[in-house]
Every structure is written in structure tokens, then in C-alpha cells.
């Protein structure tokens, strides 16, 4: 039981990291990134390719230490975020969304088709886990990983708070709130946006590296568009523009997703499992709609949201 909760918490914290990255882009900068899973994938695969134990049929699988994989994953996603941002960031709203969505789909297809590097649909295994050899049981490793995640997420959370209170963070909010301010800043507004995009993407890459080093296996099926939707649902349910909301959203949405499965298993006999599973997904959809109906700005809305309308 405890062991499952520890495992569950690790997943929630990894998802929180993704949601925090997205919150920086959307909640604080207004960038509609619908390609979250693409950056997650880049981080995951970079880590996997660098740290997985060597195998003759693959170009990668260098067997490098865990920390190298994590840092390289962040660097690779930052670079990818910069390149993708450079091309797409001037698009507005929905168009940026569909463009980033397309980028994520393309990245997933590359992981599926570039077999010598990514293992294609077979995936890569034996990926570097942090100090896994020190632990006898999976529970021990999970507990240690949870501790590690708490430190990483806590540090990220703290650093984001700092950054957003800094002049740089205030400029971001100004750009998001006020188009004229953005126009007045001209070229540098785009630079600020790009920086936020890169920083957010880097967090997503970190989450990807942590996910595969927790699970120990990666395949293209980890990066289907549904993951992007889940992360967005977490941010919207929790309340965008608010880091506490982002973390809470990850907990609530993933809790609903996993918990409803347990509930259905308890209530529906196995012979009706197919219908039960359909009901589970219906419940997930219904809960999402209900949360949004009754708290349209998320569980923890942004405090200063009213200010925008007063000056109309």
C-alpha cells in the first residue's frame, strides 16, 4: 500500500514538473504550447540514448552516468525549445498551439521510425537509474527516488518563484497582460517570450529524463498526444498562472485517472470489465467537465485576474 503510494507520488511529482514547465509558458507568458509531449520525449530519449547500457545494434546506448544523462537531456530540450521557438513563437494563440502540436507529432514519429538510434517501436531498455544498485527492493529505490523528486521539484518551485518575482518575471507578466506593452517592447518582447519558452521546455525535458530513469524503459508509445492533453488538463484544473495550482492539478487529475480505475475494478465484476472501463473514461470526462463548470478558473485561480478587466 505505502509502496504504491510512494510510486504514485513519484509519478505525480514528475507530472508536476511538466505542469510547472507549461505554467511558465502559458500561465505566466501566455504561450499556447500544445506540444508538451514533444519536449518530454526529447528529454526522455536523450537520457535513454546516453545512459542505456550498450547494445551492438544501436548507435546510442552509451552507458553514461545518470547525472550526465539528466543534464544532457535538459541541454538538448533547451536547444530544441530554442530552435522550435525561433520558428514558431511569432505565431499567435491557436496557431502556435497547432504548430507546436505538429512538432510534437513529428518528434514522436521520429522516435518511432529512426530505429538505429531510438530502437523504433521496440523501445530502449536498461536506462540509467540513479544509484539503483544501492537498493535491494523496488520500494527502497522508489522511496529514494521520491526523496530525490521532492528535492528537485522543491528546488524548481522555489527557483521559479524567485524568477517570477525578479524583473524578468515581471516583464513576462506585463507582456502577457498588455499587448501594448508587448508591442512597445518590440523585438525584446519576442526575446522574453523565447526565453520563457526555452526555460519551460527545459523543465519538460528534465521531467522526461526523470520519467525514463524512474521506469527504466522508453518507447514511442510513451509520447502520444494524450499526454499533452493530460498535462494541460492538470494546469487548467489546478489553475493556470499559479505554481501551487499546477502541482495540485497534477495530483488531482492523475488521482482521478488512476483512482477511477481502482473504483471501477472494485465495483464492476470482471465479466463486465469492458463496460466498466468505458464507464471509467466517461467518469474521467465528466469529472473534468464538472470541475471546470464549477471552478472555471481552476481550483486555485490566479489572484490578480480581475485587474485585467478594470482598465478596459
Amino acid at each position, binding site marked *: 500500500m505505502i509502496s504504491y503510494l510512494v510510486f504514485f507520488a513519484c*509519478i505525480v511529482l514528475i507530472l508536476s514538473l511538466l505542469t510547472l514547465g507549461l505554467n511558465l509558458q502559458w500561465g505566466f507568458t501566455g504561450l499556447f504550447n500544445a506540444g508538451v509531449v514533444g519536449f518530454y520525449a526529447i528529454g526522455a530519449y536523450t537520457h535513454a540514448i546516453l545512459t542505456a547500457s550498450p547494445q551492438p545494434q544501436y548507435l546510442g546506448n552509451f552507458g553514461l552516468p545518470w547525472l550526465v544523462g539528466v543534464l544532457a537531456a535538459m541541454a538538448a530540450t533547451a536547444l530544441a525549445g530554442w530552435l522550435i521557438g525561433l520558428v514558431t513563437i511569432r505565431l499567435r494563440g491557436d496557431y502556435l498551439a497547432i504548430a507546436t502540436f505538429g512538432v510534437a507529432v513529428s518528434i514522436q514519429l521520429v522516435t518511432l521510425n529512426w530505429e538505429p538510434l531510438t530502437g523504433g517501436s521496440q523501445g530502449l531498455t*536498461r536506462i540509467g537509474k540513479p544509484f539503483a544498485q544501492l537498493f535491494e527492493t523496488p520500494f527502497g529505490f522508489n522511496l529514494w527516488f521520491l526523496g530525490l523528486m521532492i528535492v528537485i521539484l522543491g528546488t524548481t518551485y522555489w527557483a521559479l518563484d524567485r524568477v517570477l518575482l525578479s524583473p524578468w518575471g515581471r516583464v513576462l507578466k506585463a507582456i502577457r497582460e498588455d499587448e501594448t506593452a508587448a508591442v512597445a517592447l518590440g523585438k525584446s518582447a519576442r526575446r522574453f517570450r523565447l526565453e520563457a519558452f526555452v526555460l519551460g521546455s527545459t523543465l519538460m525535458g528534465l521531467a522526461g529524463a526523470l520519467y525514463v530513469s524512474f521506469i527504466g524503459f522508453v518507447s514511442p*508509445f510513451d509520447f502520444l498526444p494524450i499526454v499533452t492533453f493530460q498535462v494541460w488538463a492538470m494546469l487548467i484544473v489546478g489553475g493556470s498562472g499559479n505554481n501551487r495550482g499546477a502541482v495540485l492539478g497534477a495530483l488531482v487529475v492523475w488521482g482521478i485517472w488512476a483512482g477511477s480505475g481502482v473504483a471501477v475494478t472494485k465495483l464492476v465484476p*470482471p465479466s463486465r470489465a469492458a463496460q466498466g472501463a468505458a464507464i471509467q473514461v466517461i467518469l474521467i470526462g465528466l469529472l473534468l467537465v464538472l470541475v471546470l463548470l464549477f471552478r472555471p478558473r481552476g481550483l486555485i485561480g490566479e489572484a490578480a485576474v480581475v485587474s485585467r478587466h478594470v482598465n478596459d
Partner: protein
Amino acid sequence: MERRGRSAVVSAVALVAGVLAAAPAAAQTCPVKIGGVLPLTGSMAPITKKIAQAAELAIEHVNAGGGVKGCPVQFILRDDQGQPTVGVDAAKYLVEVERVPAFTGTISSGVTGPIIASVTAPSKVVQITCCSTASPFTLDGRSGGYFFRTIPTSKTQAYATASETARRGMKKTVVVYINTDFGTDMLRFYKAAVAKLGGEVIAEVPYNDNQPSYRAEVTKALAAKPESLLLIGFPKDAVTIVREWLSLGGTKSIALNNSMRTMDFVNGVGAKFVEDVFGMDNAQVAGPHVDAFNKAFEEKFQADTKGPGVHTQYDALMVMALAMNISKDLTGPSIKDAVRRVHVPNGTPVGTGPAEFKKAVELIKAGKPIKYFGATGPIEFDANGDVTGPALVWKIKDGQIVTDRSITIEDMQTLFKRVEN
């Protein structure tokens, strides 16, 4: 805001914990729990329906035949939605909360892979799949010997297919295959075998599943002017592909893989249009144990047993229950070793159905070895946890799927030697 946020956190945690607490944390007492993870929703769901029914039937037979160690078996089935994270969570839940020592699952290798890596191997529980064929899972030792499958690897089927296409003199073949581990494995092994056995692959067209139309892929395949088609995939998309293929004037000389051995496929395309096709399937040598399963399934669900994973799923759970009876205790490591003792060369043969299971349990109690013949034939695992079974060639006659001929285990072994040397 502050307080509301915090109370939301508390209630969310309470919700999760409450649901989980409802599960009694019992092991070794009655009933004995067996887990299952299958994609009950999502794109694989159409083929899962019968697989889940086969699982249900197996559990029913086990319980009617005396259960495990005198206890009835409780089967806890979770949905993986075809999503790796969901599947891993479900498996973790089964192992850590429900404390199952063994579970069956799942179909998509993209979900099975992370489950092996993060649940099965580290937690030392037994996992038997009906359907995940990705070749590396059993080969590279990643599972620590805890992962088994009752479905022969893609290699067996691919070699058998190549021998049959060669026998029928199929030339200038285009291979249209699903772009997953299953499809790429099949293509790779098929090409290797064809090179030795005769025949020529003139074009390879991968396809991604769940496309609304495959006209582009079919057009591309036809552009190579093939004389025959080998289609590797799953029935839903295959119906669309074959219909588009035929209506665009493609040849009727079509070879298919095991998944298409289902009336859904035949009726989907239209029986009169597929008179010339043939397909492969694993194992299922004829015999009383196969018939017994087919009969029991047809009676219970008013549906035939043709379809991917139906027989193998039944065997996965029967093997698991037999092994749990053989095992000295209900822990993963000892069940793992017991799995290899369900088909002992000098054992007493036992088959499918409740009566045969009961007989097996009594033999086990008496300390005698058993030799299980399942719904797919003799179940004997090799060192990797794979089965090599016989194969059969099926065709369609008068709107029905009939067996054309069988390839025995001995034939298969010769075939392997011819291809791999």
C-alpha cells in the same frame, strides 16, 4: 484561496487513500488474487473483448476445478487504455496494493515494456502475456526470468509464413505492415526467411494504425506492381486496407498474419472477396484439449474463438494457476520456477476445462509431474520464457475460416535450422 487550495489537496489525497484503503491487504489467504492488465478501452479495445472473455473463462475453469491451493481465485482486471503510464500504474497497484504474486498482460508492447522494467522485474512477480510479441523482451534478460508469453514470438510466425509463401510460389511480394514492434519484427524475420526459402519482397510499406483511410499506402504498394501481398496488422485497419486494395485492382493473392483469423475480418471485407487469401496462425494443433476450450468458450459467450490472443490468453491464466498450485508458496520467485514445471516431458498429460484442471490439481497434490496441453497446444517454455509452437495455415472456404494444413513442431525446428544456418 489559500485555504481552499489546501483543503482541495487534503480531499484529493483522502480520495485516493480512501479508495485504496478499501482494498484488504491480504496475501496467502483465501481468495487467492491474480491480476490482469489489458487495454479495455483505446485503439486495441476491439481485439481485447474476446481476450478478456477468454481470461474470464480460464478463471471460471480454475475455480470450478478447485482453485489455487484450495482457495478460490479472485481475478482483478485493470484497464491500461493503451497508455504506458496508465498500464504501469495499474500493474503497480495490482502488485503493491492487491499483492498479487502473478498477473497477466498486456497487449501493446509499448505498455508491456515499461511494466516489465518497472514492476515485474524489480518486484519479482510473474507476468505472463497472451499477446506482446516484441522480440527483445525475453531475449536480453531484462525481465530476470519473470516474464513469459504463451504466444510464440514473431519469428516463429514469420518463418512459417515465409515457408508457406515459398511453397505456394508467391513472387514479387509487397509487404504492408503495421508500424509497431510486431510489424517491424515480422517484416525483418520474414525477409530473412524469404531470402533462404525463395521469393522476393519488392516493396515494404509501413502503416500507422487508426488512420481514417489507407488509400495512400495502398496506392504506394500498388505502384510497385506486385503479384502478391503480405499484410501484417490487426483486423480493424486490415479490413480497410484489403477493401481499398481490392477495389483499386490489387491482386487477390494475399497472405495474412494470425490476427486476421477472425470472422470480423472475413465479414468485414466480405467473404466472397477473400476466397484466395490464406493466413498463418500459431499452434492450435487439433486435439481434444483445443476442442474442449473452443466448445466451452462458444457455449458461454455465443461467439467463436477465432481472433488474436483468445487461446493464448486462456493458456496464460491456466499456466499461471497450475504453476501457483505447483509452487511451494505464493511468491513470485517460486511461481516463476514452477511455470517451467507445467509441461514436464514424462508428466501425465492434462488438458483444458474444469475437469482436467481438477485432475491436474490432484496430480500435483500427489506430487506427480504434469504435462499441460492447452488451448494452443503443448505449452513448453524455452530458456527465455518463450514457447515455440507448431503453426497452421488457414484459408477461407464458403465464408468460413478453415485450416488448410498444419506445420508440426518438428517441421518448425527444421525450418529454423534452414533459415538460421
